[in-house]
């Protein structure tokens, strides 16, 4: 395991969430660069981070974009999340689940921030289909792109309120062009009823998080149920699948959070309740787990430290962020 870079930019933002490996070059981005964003500002408050970093595989990190703290098109402000994607024309989409004070008492519905390949703010995507965008997978079709996005703030009414089963997965079709930022063509709720909860004194919110798409099925990590579920026919479905079909539950899963599809087709997950990565097959068979962040400063060790995860080019390993040390790390795989 190698520490690649610090994920704290000059403005002191911290708590890295999204990890996204650029599939091609555009603007300032080179194929294989890693985009990382921060959820917190230097105030330590969650939902206030505005920075997107660009990390070369060599470990050189620079600020790619610093999004304004408040945007007219982003209800509640800006606090960048695990939801990140790069569209064919180089547009970078980043989820925002903002707060004013680090609690859901002041959380806004948020948006997707659109950033050009040169790091300039290009627009926002907001609307009823977006409420606490937490993670996302994408599928490109050239002039259109399809997003599969988890929302985790729906009807969450502030810290300490009872769990509500309203988290969802939406499919958003965008029209994509080189000359202008992507716009929403249509949206559809694919799954709903995932539990969401806001802690009083610590993490902002827990709810449906990691999303992956494989062979037309969407997979969602549900940390509060400690499950990974499958939503079939994700590209074509016109009615909600509810909370879908449980693929895997328990075992070494301890609050599955971030998710990526490994080169062998298995699902890789980060645990929120410890510092482990877990590998499961699409049929739910758990095949491996790795302790990658056993930081004893957390209880249990590593709890809350992992979030976003992405496969390194060529399948040579797994990039992941460590929120305790604010670093991007690479676990090399043989």
């Amino acid at each position, binding site marked *: 395991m190698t520490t690649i870079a610090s994920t704290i930019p000059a403005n*002191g933002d911290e708590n890295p969430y999204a990890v996204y490996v650029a599939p091609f070059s555009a603007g300032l981005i080179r194929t294989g660069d890693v985009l990382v964003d921060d959820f*917190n500002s230097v105030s*330590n408050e*969650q939902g206030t981070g505005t920075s997107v970093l660009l990390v070369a595989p060599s470990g050189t990190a620079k600020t790619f974009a610093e999004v304004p703290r408040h945007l007219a098109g982003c209800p509640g402000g800006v606090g960048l999340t695990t939801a990140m994607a790069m569209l064919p024309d180089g547009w970078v989409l980043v989820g925002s689940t903002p707060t004013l004070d680090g609690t859901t008492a002041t959380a806004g519905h948020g948006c997707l921030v659109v950033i050009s390949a040169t790091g300039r703010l290009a627009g926002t995507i907001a609307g009823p289909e977006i409420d606490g965008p937490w993670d996302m997978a994408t599928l490109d079709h050239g002039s259109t792109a399809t997003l599969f996005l988890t929302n985790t703030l729906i009807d969450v009414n502030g810290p300490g309120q009872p769990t509500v089963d309203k988290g969802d997965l939406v499919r958003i079709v965008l029209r994509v062009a080189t000359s202008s930022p992507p716009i929403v063509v249509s949206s559809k709720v694919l799954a709903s009823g995932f539990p969401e909860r806001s802690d009083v*004194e610590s993490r902002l919110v827990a709810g449906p998080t990691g999303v992956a798409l494989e062979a037309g099925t969407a997979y969602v990590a549900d940390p509060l149920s400690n499950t990974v579920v499958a939503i079939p026919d994700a590209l074509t479905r016109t009615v909600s699948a509810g909370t879908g079909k449980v693929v895997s539950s328990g075992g070494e899963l301890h609050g599955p959070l971030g998710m990526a599809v490994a080169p062998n087709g298995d699902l890789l997950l980060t645990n929120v309740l410890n510092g482990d990565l877990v590998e499961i097959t699409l049929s739910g068979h758990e095949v491996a787990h790795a302790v990658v962040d056993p930081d004893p*400063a957390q209880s249990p060790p590593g709890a809350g430290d992992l979030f976003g995860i992405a496969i390194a080019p060529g399948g040579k390993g797994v990039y992941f962020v460590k929120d305790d040390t604010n670093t991007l790390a690479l676990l090399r795989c043989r």
Partner: protein
Amino acid sequence: MVGDPVSNNERGDSGSSGTGAARGVSRRRFLGSVGGAALGAGALAARLKISSPDEPTPKGTSYRNSTEPFYGDGPQGGITTAPQSNTYFAALDLLSERRLEVVELLRSWNAVAANLTAGKPARPLLKNVSAVEPDSGEAIDLGPARLTVTFGFGTGLFEKGGADRYGLSSRRPAALVDLPRFPNDQLIEQKTGGDLTIQACAEDSQVAFHAVRQLARLADGVAQIRWVQAGFNETAASQGTPRNLMGFKDGTINPTTAAQQAKFLWVASEGPAWMRGGTYLVARRIRISLEHWDQESLSVQEQVIGRHKVSGAPLGESSEFAPLDLEATDASGNPVIPIDAHVRLAAPQNNRGEMILRRSYSYNDGIDLFTERWPPWERALLYDAGLLFCAYQRDPRKGFIPIFESLAENDSLGQFTTHTGSVIVALPRAALGDGHFVGEDLFV
């Protein structure tokens, strides 16, 4: 001007007691030629002597009557002086645009500091019921209490916001750099920087504060206090390396011999003439998440630090001053001192042999509402307590900066500490005697 100049008596004129003199080892003895007593060893020897059955540990009055010299031909007091139990540190912004006013302030500060360190009022009391007294009086009868006053010159004396207010920018020492931003820094602007610093150290917290209070009062209109930090240090009580609030000994590996100090501490011919024999201070206000730390097992705490808590010995050793064996491995081949342990990363072996003198004070500023810097981002009323970390070195570009660059990113202690305040200053050598002031050659 000063009405009651003290004599140019290195020992002060208020009569050091025998034990006080033994403990308050004159800095000249550390600074003198080769063969002079080294601070650490000397101070330790002095403490051991204090603790011997023949000579009961001095508490209270004997400390009160002990003085530390203000004037001298070596460095200022408060650097290699055996640590007093209290400090009051102040950083000030210069308001005046006039060089002469700055010089006059420094001149009066030095004269008053000489009085204060001798246990006298800032200036003789007027005892006139209709007059404003030149001293606030709370140190009357408290004695000199080993007071030292150390003056520092920050970057703003030389250059501020691109302005060369006093014609000094060309004389700024190369070593007086602007500190870089370190990963995990959360510096509070109101607790960072300062054009001038005053650090008072004394065996009595009221004496220490009193000193800064009188000096700051003299600055009216010329400079104003930007931030302050009070601190405490239980060196005297523990009679050894002091423990910080984490419960661990802090400062075991310090440049203590004359040779080490000549190499790592005192500016020599590489610096401007006015800085020779002086040093540079990097002071950092480090908040320690004590509630978080207190939840860790002894084993975890010791792994984080790399030393045993009670003895202060490196992990696997039994003596505090046992050499750090960074190559030692356990039965399974793992390093005995973990790769991210604080002592490993801070060790001279991992820092091109460089050393810094640490003479830090714990602080306790009560409680406040904090959101912690780590998952799960706990929000609560928590202690605002920690360490006023004071690192002295000949060149911060070789000392604190590269050492802390490595620590800031990798030190597992960073899971419990947050740097919230910072200043870097030049500490010129002491004023020679009455009528002289610290750093006067800078203004020639």
